[in-house]
């Protein structure tokens, strides 16, 4: 800490005030190196000159920022998995007892995950007025950008970073069930409630507080381990016996408790025990709020330190000499030094429970996270209740909007049951209402296109993909795979009934669609004879691939990816035989392996050219709702060039439900150089079918500064 401060002081003396006169063209170049949208926003707010640089660069061109993820049911499904290999801890900076205190700051409404962090959208709830106002967007990982929390960024030391990466990846690969990890290796298996890396060993904590050490744990680069076999011969050894007094005896029989393992900043292995009476399972706990401290009845938190020499747990009275706070959750726990933090909400000697860990108790559902515990009593930090007028006030609480699909460049598609669709810009709050889809298109067509069918499809899935090409043009794939164009102000969609449309992309001012047989069409709205009626004109640009056999045999998914200078097509190929005999490792030999190919459209000659030598350091983020080519730079092992990421849940054409099975690209990335498929867990581990699924979107570059 001291070292850190002195460094800063030196820097301050050194930097001369010339930086504010940074020439705009250089500022623009620097801006292009910032991939996080939030970093860009921060850049443009530093001073006038830098703002000018941002404005000018924005007009020229800015590489796309890293995508964000949006999920409507955040706290329960998203948050835990999101810590995946990130190495940082999801910290939430709200008062712990959301939803219970009328004067509370806000309610966690939704979670936007970007590759640069997790953003939590908090809303202010006026109990008297029955309305909600979004009030803050918080980076859950670093708290970096926002003034929530003001100026607290505690970068974790690299040692911990490594530790956490390893644990997170391990946890993904260890079977997770009922809040326990099944850890197998060396022919034995054991259920652990939590695990942590500490001094080169993997420690597992059982539900009754026994600590086991595992040797020879092999870490795999990138934080992704393909399977449990990566853990070689783990010799488990009982190192610390269970605590003398089981916490559960403090309360009635059958009381609930939870344990976490955390490695403290000064190299100690700590266990956090949380106990609560059994009636918590059925009745929400009583909460008394007094000033800034709320007490949760009957709940108790203890921190114990592993004494390896004596093989026992020892009580801990203060954390890291009163400098540290612990942040714990099922997926990743961390000790952070918070000494000198100006934020009252973040204080040392506290245990912050930030995960969605309490959801297994039904009554906890509403306050899944976060919970803050001081060592002596449960409490939450001081908060500053001050509502902020906000533009993003589009979510009508009486009709919960379904954030069903994502959009390009910051546009989200929203759907209110019983109402129409509308698009909402996450940054500016602008709204475009979409017209109703013609009734004849709301009928599910039979396999392979054509008419027929008969089944009426649920209204929320009528629009499969929608994108805002420009403020004056919105394009969509309507359910029956037809392409619809809409100009705000018109009364209806102009539909071109291409029955097999797979994906659409907006490239150089034109809308393109690709069909099942890989034909590429260009769509345009042309003004008709009278000014009010426009026509939807379609022209075939690339003809279907002649190889019909391949088409028939290989179920696949096609994605269009438009960058500023090329139009790419990503093809996910699942051979029929591979579907029936999918092996654990998707890198199966022979011709039956799942494959991915990328093509570039040659619009002049009218053909697809395969892109063979990787993407020149770029990565593609592909999803049914928006796909983009992103230039990656940085040391983040998770996100590397020459890969195609499918961070959301992708349903193959032959499935209608949300599906993340082995033959779907959902939550995976494909390494084009190594031809391997690796899972990325953005949602809860192994759930094959998910009820709510994440959607990606890209923050709008136009919103950097106005």
């Amino acid at each position, binding site marked *: 800490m001291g070292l850190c401060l002195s460094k800063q002081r030196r*820097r*301050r003396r*050194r*930097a*001369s*005030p*010339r*930086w*504010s006169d*940074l*020439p705009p*063209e*250089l500022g623009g*170049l*620097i*801006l292009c*190196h*910032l991939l996080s949208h*939030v*970093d860009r*926003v*921060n*850049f443009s707010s*530093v*001073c006038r000159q*830098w703002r000018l640089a941002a404005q000018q660069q924005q007009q020229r*061109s800015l*590489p796309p920022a890293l995508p964000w993820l949006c999920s409507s049911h955040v706290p329960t499904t998203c948050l835990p998995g999101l810590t995946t290999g990130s190495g940082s801890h999801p910290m939430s900076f709200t008062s712990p007892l959301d939803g219970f205190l009328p004067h509370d700051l806000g309610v966690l409404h939704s979670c936007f995950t970007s590759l640069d962090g997790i953003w939590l959208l908090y809303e202010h709830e006026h109990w008297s007025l029955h309305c909600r106002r*979004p009030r803050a*967007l918080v980076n859950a990982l670093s708290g*970096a*950008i*926002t*003034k929530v929390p*003001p100026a607290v*960024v505690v*970068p974790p030391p690299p040692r911990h970073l490594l530790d956490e990466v390893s644990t997170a990846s391990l946890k993904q690969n260890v079977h997770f069930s009922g809040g326990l990890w099944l850890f197998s290796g060396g022919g034995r298996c054991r259920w652990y409630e939590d695990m942590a890396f500490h001094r080169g060993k993997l420690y597992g904590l059982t539900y009754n507080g026994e600590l086991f050490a595992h040797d020879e744990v092999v870490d795999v680069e990138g934080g992704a381990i393909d399977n449990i076999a990566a853990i070689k011969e783990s010799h488990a050894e009982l190192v610390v016996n269970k605590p003398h007094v089981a916490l559960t005896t403090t309360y009635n029989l059958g009381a609930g408790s939870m344990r976490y393992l955390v490695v403290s900043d000064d190299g100690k292995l700590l266990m956090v025990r949380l106990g609560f009476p059994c009636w918590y399972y059925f009745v929400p706990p009583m909460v008394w709020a007094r000033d800034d401290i709320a007490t949760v009845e009957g709940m108790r938190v203890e921190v114990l330190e592993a004494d390896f020499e004596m093989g026992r747990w020892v009580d801990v009275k203060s954390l890291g000499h009163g400098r540290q706070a612990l942040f714990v959750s099922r997926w990743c726990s961390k000790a952070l030094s918070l000494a000198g933090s100006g934020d009252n909400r973040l204080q040392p000697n506290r245990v912050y429970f930030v995960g969605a860990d309490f959801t297994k108790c039904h009554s906890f559902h509403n306050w899944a996270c976060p919970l803050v515990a001081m060592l002596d009593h449960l409490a939450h930090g001081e908060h500053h209740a*001050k509502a*902020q*007028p906000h*533009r*993003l006030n589009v979510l009508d609480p009486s009709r919960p909007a379904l954030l069903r699909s994502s959009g390009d460049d910051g546009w989200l598609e929203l759907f209110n049951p019983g109402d129409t669709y509308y698009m909402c810009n996450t*940054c500016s*709050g602008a709204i475009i209402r979409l017209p109703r889809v013609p009734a004849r298109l709301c009928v599910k067509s039979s396999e392979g296109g054509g008419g027929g069918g008969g089944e009426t499809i649920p209204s929320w899935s009528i629009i499969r993909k929608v994108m805002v090409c420009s403020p004056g043009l919105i394009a969509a794939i309507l359910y029956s795979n037809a392409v619809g164009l809409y100009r705000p102000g018109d009364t209806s969609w102009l539909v071109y009934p291409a029955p097999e449309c797979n994906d659409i992309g907006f490239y150089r001012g034109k809308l393109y669609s690709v069909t099942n047989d890989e034909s590429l069409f260009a769509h345009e709205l042309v003004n008709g004879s009278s000014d009010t009626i426009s026509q939807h004109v379609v022209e075939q640009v690339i003809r279907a691939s002649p190889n019909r056999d391949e088409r028939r045999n290989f179920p696949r998914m096609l994605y269009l990816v438009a*960058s*500023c*200078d090329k139009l790419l097509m990503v093809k996910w190929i699942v051979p029929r035989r591979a579907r029936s005999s999918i092996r654990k490792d998707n890198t199966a030999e022979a011709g039956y392996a799942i494959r991915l190919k990328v093509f570039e459209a040659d619009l002049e000659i009218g053909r697809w050219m395969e*892109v*063979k*030598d*990787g*993407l*020149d*350091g*770029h990565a593609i983020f592909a999803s049914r709702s928006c796909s983009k*080519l992103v*230039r990656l*730079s940085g040391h983040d092992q998770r996100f590397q060039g020459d890969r195609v990421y499918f961070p959301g849940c992708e349903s193959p054409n032959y499935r209608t439900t949300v599906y993340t099975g082995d033959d779907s690209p959902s939550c995976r990335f494909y390494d084009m150089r190594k031809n391997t498929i690796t899972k990325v867990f953005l949602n809860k581990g192994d759930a094959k079918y998910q009820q709510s699924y994440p959607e990606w979107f890209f923050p709008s570059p136009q*919103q950097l*500064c106005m």
Partner: protein
Amino acid sequence: MEVDKGKGEAEETRKVAEADRDTVTLKSSDGKLFEVSKEAAARLSTVLAGMIAGGSIDDNGTDLKQIGSEALENVVDYCNKHANSIPSAALISSSISFNTAPFKEPEEWERKFVDRLSHDALFDLVEAANFLGMERLLDVTCHKISEMMKGKSPDQIREVFNIKNDYTKEELEEIRQELAWAFYDD
């Protein structure tokens, strides 16, 4: 190891270069002279390449009035180091070209090169690189500067770079209104 080997080779090439007098002399704004290999200068800097091709190189030192001696020393140092390092595979363009500035990660020596610079030296260097049209050096320095901003709030960036907040209260309020989704003040 690779670097060592490269140095050895470069030592030889430099001897050869000296024999052919294949160097360019550059003069900083404060009159100091620096020598750099003609080949490296032409390859790394579009401006110097133009001057060499156009014959506007002065044997007694080409005047670069916009560049101070400290920055020019860094530039020359960079050119020499670049000549010494073996071009990695990443720098060889692949079959498909992406116009959207395919920035390659700084190599280890480039990272070290910019890491040791003070904030002011970095500022001078980025300006010099811009002036001389040294694309790669510009990329590396801009990357370094961007790294210094990542994950920081505007206040923290101002502190790091010693920038005064020159917005008026009204302007700040305006920015906050515009970016209300991102900023929250108490």
